[in-house]
């Protein structure tokens, strides 16, 4: 794929010569996507997302020489970003949030405002939000998610089901906060 070749060319220029221009090109190619991903994982907290994005690049540069190009650079960077976001949350919150109650909620059959959806995702417990963002927004497979999160594929599937139910509850509430249990 052409995009992948360009990533590889830039990465090689950076590794061989410490080329600042090549790094900046890589940064500009991937940071908008990573930034949005991190913002969503971190519930819209921009400062945390920035810190996590910086840490993502620091780690990526340190490990780039070991990257085997068996996946796309975007996928690889996304995995690093996910870990950075998780660590950032632990620092801020002192641990993973508890899960939300999953009262049955019907499918949303009316059009959904994007801002409202974004708010509902941001309000999900961390575990639900991760799986839902990775699967339904980033379009990762359950196999990829299982690998990234260190969980079983079945767990990823069940977490997604519960995350979707929790999301529908939030959307059905008209944006009111739901108490985590």
């Amino acid at each position: 794929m052409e995009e992948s070749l360009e990533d590889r060319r830039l990465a090689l220029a950076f590794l061989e010569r410490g080329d600042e221009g090549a790094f900046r090109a890589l940064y500009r190619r991937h940071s908008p996507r990573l930034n949005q991903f991190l913002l969503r994982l971190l519930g819209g907290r921009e400062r945390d997302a920035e810190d996590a994005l910086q840490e993502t690049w620091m780690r990526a540069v340190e490990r780039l020489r070991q990257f085997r190009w068996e996946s796309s650079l975007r996928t690889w960077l996304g995995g690093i970003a996910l870990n950075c976001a998780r660590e950032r949350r632990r620092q801020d919150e002192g641990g993973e949030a508890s899960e939300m109650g999953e009262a049955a909620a019907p499918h949303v059959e009316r059009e959904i405002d994007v801002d409202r959806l974004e708010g509902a995702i941001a309000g999900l417990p961390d575990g639900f939000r991760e799986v839902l963002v990775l699967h339904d927004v980033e379009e990762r497979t359950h196999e990829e998610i299982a690998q990234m999160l260190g969980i079983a594929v079945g767990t990823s599937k069940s977490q997604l089901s519960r995350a979707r139910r929790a999301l529908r509850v939030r959307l059905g509430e008209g944006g009111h906060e739901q108490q985590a249990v």
Partner: protein
Amino acid sequence: MNSKPSEELSPQEQRALAALPRERAPRPELEERVVAALQARGLLHRHRPGGVRRWIGLAAGLAAAFLLGYWLGARREPEPPPQPPLGQWLLLLYENQGPWPADLTEADMPRIVEEYRSWARENAVGGERLELRGNRISLVAGEIDSQIVPGPEDALYLGGFFVIQAQNLEQARTIAETCPHLKYGGIIEIREIADMTE
């Protein structure tokens, strides 16, 4: 999606999720912050220092007059010095007059010129080519001595120069080693430009 049909997304839900933005550019300041942090950890160089080019021995004697003729128009605008402590260094580009490497033709010239252009954009703050024919005299105690100024007909002659910025000779050498001039058989002499400011 999900294995249980009842937990599949409704069309409205699918549309809403698809409409979520996938990209959001970070603040421009963050790029500078990341670059500075990488430089502080020694993971990124301000200029491309690079190692010795693999192709230094590629060819002796590319016709420099032809090359530098193209190069003049390709020279880039100087950029401001990145750091005050950096000194200026002159790279004197000497040319070998000899047969072209067998694997290069005149058709390769645009690509070679682009290599010089690209290198200058990344590394130099100035540069000129020197006129290759005529107007070459030497004055020795007021007397013209044309014998001591080599030209294209000579085995080695000065064809142009670049001005770069570096903190010391080692850094200047490292930068010079990345110049495509070496790869095409040229010779680079590095001289420090004296700082005459107060």
